[in-house]
């Protein structure tokens, strides 16, 4: 039974553009390798943090929406904790209202892009 999740992580600003892409790819692959499927992805870019984390005032935000097994989330979070590039993360299970909201949000985003 796959559940709908979304995960946001903040990568350190010391990384280069290529290193960020590499980190994102690692998690994307990690999800698909473990039987999950990626629904949506959003790059928020370099953002200012509301308060310093590990003495850094900015960070690269990245959002991934995916479907996976419930047991997978623990594995993913272990990966986050081991990774020094990730300074903060949040994984959130979407219920039906949240999923509907995410869908509308996606529709809005693609509209503004076009």
């Amino acid at each position: 039974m796959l559940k709908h999740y979304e995960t946001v992580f903040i990568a350190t600003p010391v990384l280069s553009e290529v290193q960020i892409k590499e980190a994102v790819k690692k998690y994307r692959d990690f999800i698909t390798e473990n039987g999950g499927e990626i629904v949506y992805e959003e790059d928020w870019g370099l953002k200012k943090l509301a308060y310093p984390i590990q003495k850094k005032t900015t960070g690269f935000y990245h959002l991934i929406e995916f479907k996976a097994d419930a047991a997978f989330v623990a594995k993913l979070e272990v990966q986050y904790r081991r990774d020094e590039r990730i300074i903060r993360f949040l994984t959130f299970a979407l219920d039906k209202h949240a999923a509907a909201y995410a869908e509308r949000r996606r529709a809005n985003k693609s509209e503004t892009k076009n």
Partner: protein
Amino acid sequence: MANPLNNEIRYLNPPTVEVKKKKYCRFKKAGIKYVDYKDAEFLKRFLNEQGKILPRRLTGTSLKFQKKVSQAVKRARHLSLLPYVTDLLK
């Protein structure tokens, strides 16, 4: 001296009758079912200047959504989208 016909209380200014504006839950009114933690600008409406969550008695939010708002604010704080403590937010 005291005129029995004139003993009503007289006001210098006409007394203002306060019409209380009825508070309402904006989520129920607008039909919002999910409070997004990623939308920091929206969540700021439920915070005071120090970044504290405003009580229900001020915002009029229903209990059901107050819980969701507070949960969303806490998630946003964890992701550093909102500050835990600050001065002069907004």
